[in-house]
């Protein structure tokens, strides 16, 4: 699946997007965050307060318990500050 990072999540992870291939045990958005956090310092910093990071699956807001199976695109970002 394709992962996108925005705003300070992007800055901390150090890239705007990448391809992810999580193991089958990673079922939910929350699992994915935990798995990403173990990939290095930048990821750990980006996700150190999991509640401060929002996610979207295929461009729709998703909670941390949402299942990622079938999603082609996942995005992580801070709470929105548009408008």
């Amino acid at each position, binding site marked *: 699946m394709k992962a*996108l990072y*925005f*705003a*300070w999540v992007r800055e901390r992870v150090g890239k705007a997007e990448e391809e992810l291939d999580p193991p089958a045990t990673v079922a939910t958005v929350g699992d994915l965050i935990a798995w990403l956090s173990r990939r290095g310092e930048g990821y750990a910093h980006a996700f150190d307060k999991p509640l401060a990071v*929002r996610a*979207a699956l295929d*461009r*729709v*807001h998703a909670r941390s318990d949402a299942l990622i199976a079938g999603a082609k695109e996942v*995005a992580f*970002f*801070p*709470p*929105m*500050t*548009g*408008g």
Partner: protein
Amino acid sequence: MMATVRVQRDDFDPGAEAEGLARGRKDVGAVASFVGYCRDEGGRLAALELEHYAGMAEEEIARVVGEAEGRWPLLGVAVIHRYGRIAPGERIVFVAVAAAHRGAAFAAAEMLMDYLKTRAPFWKLVIGVDGAFEGWVEAKADDDRSAARWSDAVSGP
């Protein structure tokens, strides 16, 4: 219902957009509109850099417009949100709603703005005047509370 949703780098003409909702119609009694501008925060802010999630931004705004349509009898909606670098005094966001009566037009315009603030995937980076600082704007609890006002009738994210 006529709905326009645009996410763009360029400025726009709010008067022309709002008038477009009523032009040639005789059933529109009310058009409520809103323009959000970049403030200079007492001279400390040089610019905002607006990052957005292209694709999702348009889709999410369209979903929010659909929820407003389901809640009030609307005759037209226009939403425009800019991204990129925006200087103090420049327009950032625009919402206009046409309806037969003013209550629906005002309520829908305000709900759209509340939802844009909390659900549309945009993030503001503040650039300080002397280049001495920059930082991401933090989401306000106030905005979540404003958006929550509408949650008895529409489902949140």
